[in-house]
């Protein structure tokens, strides 16, 4: 990896994109992720995005806004985002911090996240008929 530029890999599983955040993110990296994801959603025509934050020990307001941002952008591009694996200490701190992460769907783990996305796709399909 080139010095100074971390980049988070984005995996594709069918119409879903999976991002696993495992490093202590620099602000730049978070912004780069936002850009990369938006591009990829568009490129692939993704309908769902899962962001796995189970390895994140700290979620501050910057990361929080990044997650909400991705969720919003994805939504405009026609994809649903689910943030999974939030650690208890992180949840407690976010509540105290006053960050509501409104509009961001969450699930306990990747499996549940996928179930939510599957459910949403079904909904969209039936209502589209």
């Amino acid at each position: 990896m080139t010095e100074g530029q971390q980049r988070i890999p984005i995996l594709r599983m069918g119409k879903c994109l999976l991002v696993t955040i495992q490093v202590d993110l620099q602000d730049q990296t978070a912004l780069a992720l936002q850009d990369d994801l938006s591009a990829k959603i568009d490129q692939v025509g993704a309908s769902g995005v899962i962001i796995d934050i189970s390895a994140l020990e700290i979620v501050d307001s910057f990361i929080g806004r990044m997650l909400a941002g991705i969720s919003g952008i994805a939504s405009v591009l026609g994809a649903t985002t689910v943030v999974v694996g939030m650690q208890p200490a992180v949840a407690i701190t976010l509540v105290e911090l006053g960050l509501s992460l409104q509009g961001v769907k969450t699930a306990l783990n990747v499996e549940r996240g996928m179930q939510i996305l599957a459910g949403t796709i079904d909904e969209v399909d039936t209502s589209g008929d």
Partner: protein
Amino acid sequence: MSDDLTVIGQILESDRAAVLQDWLGEIRATAGLGASTKTLNADTESLLKGLDKGIKSGQDGTHLDGTAWEALKDALEELSSSGAAQGISAAQTSAVVMALKRPLFERVQARLANDPVRMASGIWTVSTLVDRLSQFTLATYQKTREAVIARQQQELLELSTPVVKLWEGVLAVPMIGTLDSNRTQLVMESLLQRIVDTGSELAIIDITGVPTVDTLVAQHLLKTVTAIRLMGADCIISGIRPQIAQTIVHLGIDLQGITTKASLADALALALKRGGYIVTRAKA
């Protein structure tokens, strides 16, 4: 290094064994047999060794800081913890240390009999030194007892709010007693951890055993529910008695769309329904 400490150093150098015996004798006489712990002989001996080492080093012993005084500090802590653990009172532990004064006084007097000014100064130094040792022992004793109490409190807290699995994917926490900030924190943390560990998507917090709900308690509950939702699970609050329901409305507390049920049974029924379960009774 002051002359006085030098004298004490010399006494410990030449007379250590005798000082130890006299000290043990003094302990039996003043602090009583009740102060004798199993390790008393070893503890007192280590103490004298540590004191000797510290004085010889020349390092300032006013606060027992510095590496030269480590051995003495360790010995004092040993003495104190043995006492605290074996149920010996703080007063007795202190008396054990104080009993060191007489053996040292006697020897200072003997050595400086011809120099009353130095003798007075020497005795004063012994007195303040032993006082300091005693204070240190008391402080350690207190810390040990406080640690024991804190640990017991923690265990009590944990025992009184267990997180139970009601059903596949459904956890319940029966809250009993007054909900203070400390308690709610603890419950919140263990509940959230269990949610992650078991992958349960629903938590039921039952407050049947909570006597009053005021704005503060409501705030604590709300924070807990918000955290649960942030993680991707959901929460039902059950056990809301009519009086509490009235209080909530009167205080204008906004439950922000949290589902509430009067009883734990109702909450369980709802949980099962959400989970897609239908309960039927087998034919008798």
